[in-house]
């Protein structure tokens, strides 16, 4: 146990000041102190990617950072990459169209990772996309819908025989 410290964060465009122990993880501060529970904790050792958020524009694992390490930073979570008008961003919409999620627990990590990746890499190859997706684990979908969603959002062709919801 150690004395609490003040951490200032700009999260999804809003300024916050929280009083937390220096050892408190960014993921826990987002979830418990700021009530942004869209950032999920799936492994706490940086392997599954469910907790991915953007810190100053870079996708990072919130479970591998203490909040105090990012004092003064701009943080964007899954809530923050979602348009405020009730629609979905292009990758989110492709995830729905291609059935890229089942239980939805890993989904916020994929959404933040790929939203960030596609912003930085507008013309990826098919292999590039799979490598970009390799930092996030999903146990439900077998990645079929997620890979097809990434292809759709990147403007790459999707294999013909996948049933999808694009007509409905």
């Amino acid at each position, binding site marked *: *146990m150690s004395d609490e410290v003040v951490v200032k964060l700009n999260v999804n465009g809003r300024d916050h000041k929280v009083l937390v122990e220096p*050892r*408190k993880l960014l993921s826990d501060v987002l*979830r418990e102190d700021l*009530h*942004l*529970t*869209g*950032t*999920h*904790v*799936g*492994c*706490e*050792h940086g*392997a*599954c990617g469910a907790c991915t958020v953007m810190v100053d524009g870079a996708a990072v694992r919130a479970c591998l950072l203490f909040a105090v390490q990012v004092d003064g930073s701009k943080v964007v*979570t*899954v*809530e923050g990459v*979602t348009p405020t008008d009730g629609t*979905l961003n292009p990758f*989110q919409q492709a*995830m*729905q*169209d291609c*059935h890229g*999620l*089942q*239980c*939805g*627990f*890993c*989904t*916020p990590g994929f*959404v933040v990772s790929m939203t960030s990746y596609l912003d930085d890499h507008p013309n990826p190859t098919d*292999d590039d996309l*799979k490598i970009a*997706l*390799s930092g*996030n*684990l*999903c*146990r*439900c*979908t*077998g*990645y*079929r*819908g*997620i*890979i097809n969603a990434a292809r759709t959002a990147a403007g790459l062709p999707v*294999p013909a*025989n*996948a*049933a*999808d*919801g694009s*007509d*409905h």
Partner: protein
Amino acid sequence: MASTISAGRYVGQAVKRLEDPRLLSGHGRYVDDVQLPGMLHVAFVRSNVARGTIVSIDTSAALALPGVRAIYTGADLNPRVGMFWHTMMGPPPELGGQTPYAPLTPLAGGDVRFVGDPIVLIIAENRYIAEDAADLVEVEIDVQQAIVGWETAIDTDQRVHPGTTTNVGQEFPLPEGPEVDALFAGAPHVFTRRFSQCRATNVPMEPRGIIVHYDQYVGDLQIWAATQSVSEWKATSSRLTGVPEHRVKVVANDVGGGFGQKMMMTRDEAAVVMAAHLFGEAPIKWTEDRRESLMAANQGREEIIDVTFAVTDEGVLLGAKVFFWEDIGAYPASAGSTAGMAGAVFPGPYKFPVVLPGGSSVYTNTVGKAAYRGPWMMETVAREQMMDHIAYELGIDPIEIRRRNVIHADDLPYTTCTTMVYDSVTPSETLEQALEMLDVAAFRTMQADARAEGRLLGMGVAIYIEPSAVAFGILSSDQAIMRMDNSGKVIVAMSTGNHGQSLETTIPQIVAEHLGCNIEDVLLVQGNTESSPTGPGTGGSRSAVVAGGAAMNAALKMKDKIVQIAAHMLEASPDDMEVNAGVVSVKGTPAKALPFAMIAPVAYQMPEMLPPGMEMGLEVTARFQPAGQYTWSNATHVCTVEIDPETGMTKILRYIVSEDCGRMVNPMVVEGQIAGGVVQGIGGVLFENMIYDEDGNPLATTFLDYLIPTAPEVPDIEVGHIVTLAPGQTGFKGMGEGGAIAAPPCLANAIHDALRHLGVHPTAFPLGPSQLLTMMNEAKQA
């Protein structure tokens, strides 16, 4: 009776999921997202040895830590347990039932039985303090040699559960069969193999989690949990604590996967329930971390299967003997063994004149066995690999030997030698469709060309028939409670426990289709014991069949009442009415029409406008009970691989599934279930291995050691559909588990095909790079 079934307005359509916007935007509500005023947090002290006697537990330093509120050991919680058994499995023999449970206590008693065994439960103001306190608890254990591996468990005079007389959990001896022995003695060929698969674990991306609050003044036990079945957990918690069942309330909101692991309440969760009941003051939350999940949550597979087949010169099957050995760990969920089921469905898609199955499950000092997607699937793992081994022994193509034995349409209805009755299955049709999708001749040419260059390509086939919607005990039926409210919108409450199956979309599809309304006007309510009916929850590939059937029946009843009211209001005959998009109209006279929003208020507020004698209101209940104990679906998997001779790494080139799950509610969801199952199956062959050392230490307790597949490792999964209707009204067949059942032997057969010319004949999973390189080197030296 292969036929093309036309889709309805909703059923059969790839409707986009209604739950997705919430989950995609970070607004799902999983158990760890629930924060309650005054809530405290739980951490466990777990055993770091696999077997030993607890000499002492010193909690004084932990109790003195500021922020620690309570510490409980087995001595505090275990004696308070009323009963610990599961509704689905029934009570243990000493309480009049038949299920041989392991001796279950929430926390370890006088001894520990696996690494991860919960010994002490700590309640503190936050999880950080709870874990600090866990580090301060001193547990002295007199360590004993662990019992690891089924052979050790059988040979040793030591017992996993002290005081018991055997380490055998359940045993089904091979039936006596002198006529079968004679048949084998006279058979042209008899082949024996031993197949094994390594231990795997379910790995839901959301680990286990539970919040429990016992309000001693009200008398209610309120639970929020990551569970597949709130009814099961309500009843289990009532039996554990003695709180009457109607005062136990269980809520499961969004649940992050389960694959069988979250069906039964396990000891850790029971300990939280017991601790909350004793503590009383405030809600307590336990969220499992991944290390705990990989170390202490129930696991699957780890089976050895001995098979002996008798065949003719042409490869026609004459009979089989099969014996299943299962390592069920220390505290399996339910009774652990699935050998009875595996034996019953062993004949699968083939015309076996006789199969004699037997099995033995043994306790070991490891984590208990869970149901894991297709819990009985070792039968397909063994049978489908054995078909290839026999084919190669006889010099017959593996496809051809299947064609000579597979059940055809003109064999139906077909009763297997184990008395299973198939009425509507298409193993032959799916085999041919999958092979056509591959283009076998083109692949064989490519394989030969590649081999000339020293490259190793292979193809594998596996066929299975899935016993979906298993109907026994509480699994036999489901209920839908439906009401239309005053504005014409529909709420249907069910026992289902969605944890990825898309039921929030597929159940409204079925209701909207059969009631005749828009899907936006239907809401599924589930995962809440106060609003949902008692039932088994979601698992066993049954929700589409049984819950879907109940939803359809309720919709038809509701439609009947709506039509009667509308006909009375329009002064027409109910027989002349039609319902579309939430409007009841007189056929051919569209002007004479009433929307649900004008009919519903009449039912609730204007009794004088109702047909004489009709009860007010718009509430119906309906049940569905499948006609048979199983609703059979089926599929054929075909894949091709290339193995790197230098590294032993397997790359999957193509993966093809042809399946028949009857009428599809939503083909997009069906294909999603197939892909997810296939990739779990691939993981179980190539990557995943929950391994223990000889002292019972788990060696894969992080995601850097326990490797589940990632995106670059999976091929594009190609799916073909053949649709034959299940018997009964809906035509739906369950299919949630099949992908994970057929993928392992399909992939193993492809690897076998790629390496057999080198003298490599694999029989054991995993088949990762090191295993394949070892086998290739051994074959070279031999």
